[in-house]
C-alpha cells in the first residue's frame, strides 16, 4: 500500500493487476467538521455491518501539517473495537497536501482494499478544506456529519459541503439544538433545485449506538438509487471521467518534476521572483513551457 501511496516504481503495475480482480467495493465517504463524531460513527457502522457478515475497508484521512509535512493520524483511537477483527482493514492516510492528489491516492487505496476483499469501504475525512471535496469525488455515497455545535457554522458552511451531501447526519442528537439543526438543513435543501435524489437527514447518537441502523439503511437506499439504470450509467461515467482526470494529472506532474533539471529550474525561478526580476506568473508559465517541451525527448 505504501508503494502506491508514494507513487513508487512498481505501483502502477500493481494497480493494473488488482483493477477488476474483484468487483469494486462501494465507497462511502464520511465527512464533517473536526470532532463531529465521524470516527465514532464509522466504528459503530462498521460493527453493525460486521454483524451482518460484511468485510470492510476503512480509510481515515487526516490533514498533513503544511509547515512540517508531518501528520498525526488519530482516528484509530475510536476504532479499537475493530482493531483485531480480521474482517476489517483500517488504513490511516495523511492528505500530504497535493492538489487533487488526495482523490487519486484515495481511489488507489480503495482499489487495493477491494482486492483485499472489502465488501464496502468507509472513508473518513475532516471537512475543513479541499480534502472533503476530493474524497467526495472518490466516493459513491457521501455522508456529511454535523452536530448541534456546528449549528451557527451552517450558514458559513461552504456551498460545497451542501452540494456534495447524499445523506446528512445530525450527530450528538443528545445535545440541545439537534432539531433546529435538522430544520436548518431541511430549509437549506429546500432552496436547491429539485433532483431525483433528496438527501435524507438521519439523527444519531454515535456514542450510544443510536440511529446507526437508520444510517446504514439510508446508505443502502442511496446505493439502490445509484443502481437504477437511468441514473447509474451517466453518474458512473461522470465519476470515471473525474477519476481519469486525476490519474492523468498526478502522473503528468510527478513525471515532470522528477525529470532531471526541473528542481534546479524551480530554484532559479524562485530566486528570480525573490529578487523581483520576474513575476511568479511569468515564472510559472516559463516552467510549464520547459516541462512540456522536455517531456517528449526525456529518456524516462
Amino acid at each position, binding site marked *: 500500500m505504501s508503494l502506491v501511496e*508514494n507513487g*513508487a516504481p512498481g505501483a502502477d503495475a500493481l494497480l493494473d493487476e488488482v483493477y477488476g480482480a474483484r468487483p469494486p467495493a462501494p465507497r462511502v465517504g464520511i465527512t464533517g467538521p473536526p470532532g463531529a463524531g465521524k470516527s465514532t460513527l464509522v466504528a459503530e457502522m462498521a460493527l453493525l455491518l460486521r454483524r451482518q457478515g460484511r468485510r470492510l475497508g476503512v480509510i481515515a484521512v487526516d490533514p498533513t501539517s503544511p509547515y*512540517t509535512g508531518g501528520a498525526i493520524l488519530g482516528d484509530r483511537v475510536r476504532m479499537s473495537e475493530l*482493531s483485531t477483527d480480521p474482517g476489517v482493514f483500517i488504513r490511516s492516510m*495523511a492528505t500530504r497536501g497535493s492538489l487533487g492528489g488526495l482523490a487519486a491516492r484515495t481511489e488507489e487505496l480503495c482499489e487495493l482494499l477491494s482486492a483485499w476483499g472489502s465488501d464496502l469501504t468507509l472513508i473518513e475525512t475532516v471537512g475543513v478544506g479541499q480534502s472533503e471535496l476530493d474524497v467526495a469525488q472518490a466516493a459513491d455515497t457521501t455522508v456529511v456529519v454535523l452536530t448541534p455545535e456546528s449549528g451557527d457554522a451552517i450558514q458559513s458552511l461552504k456551498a460545497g459541503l451542501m452540494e456534495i451531501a447524499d445523506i446528512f447526519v445530525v450527530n450528538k442528537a443528545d445535545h440541545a439544538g439537534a432539531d433546529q439543526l435538522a430544520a436548518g438543513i431541511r430549509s437549506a435543501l429546500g432552496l436547491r433545485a429539485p433532483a431525483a435524489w433528496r438527501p435524507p437527514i438521519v439523527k444519531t447518537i454515535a456514542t450510544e449506538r443510536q440511529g446507526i441502523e437508520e444510517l446504514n439503511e439510508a446508505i443502502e437506499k442511496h446505493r439502490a438509487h445509484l443502481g437504477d439504470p437511468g441514473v447509474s450509467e451517466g453518474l458512473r461515467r461522470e465519476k470515471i471521467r473525474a477519476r481519469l482526470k486525476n490519474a492523468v494529472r498526478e502522473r503528468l506532474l510527478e513525471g515532470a518534476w522528477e525529470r532531471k533539471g526541473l528542481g534546479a529550474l524551480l530554484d532559479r525561478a524562485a530566486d528570480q521572483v525573490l529578487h523581483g526580476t520576474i513575476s511568479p506568473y511569468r515564472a510559472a508559465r516559463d516552467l510549464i513551457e520547459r516541462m512540456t517541451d522536455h517531456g517528449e525527448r526525456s529518456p524516462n
Partner: protein
Amino acid sequence: MAGKIRVLVAKAGLDGHDRGAKVVASAMRDAGFEVIYTGLHQTPEMIVQAAIQEDVDAVALSILSGAHMTLFPRVLALMREKGIGDVLLTGGGIIPKEDMASLKQAGVGQLFGPGTPTTAIIDYIRGASE
C-alpha cells in the same frame, strides 16, 4: 520518490494517561513523520494488527506500568510471527537500564527513559529507517 516515515505510537498496558505519548507524537509530526496514534490500553494483538495495516517503519510503545518485560517481548514475538519482524520496535517508559539491555539482547530496538529529549528518539527512528 521517498515516502514519509510512518510510525505507530501506542500506549500498552493498564496505566491510564497518555500525556507523554502525545508529546512524543507531536514532536514526531513536527519532524515530518506521519504518526498513527492508537490511544490507550492497546494489547499486543491490536498493536501488531495496526502496524501491519498501516505499513509502518517503526512501532513506538510507551509503557509506564512496569509491564515492559512482558509486553515488549510479546509484541516482538507477534511481529515476527506475522511477518513484520523487520519493522523497528522501540519505545520508552520507566525502564531500568538492565532491562533495556536485556530487551535489546532479545531484539528490541533502543528504549528511552523518562526525560529523554524527543529529538533523541526521532533521530534514532530516522537513522534506522534509512
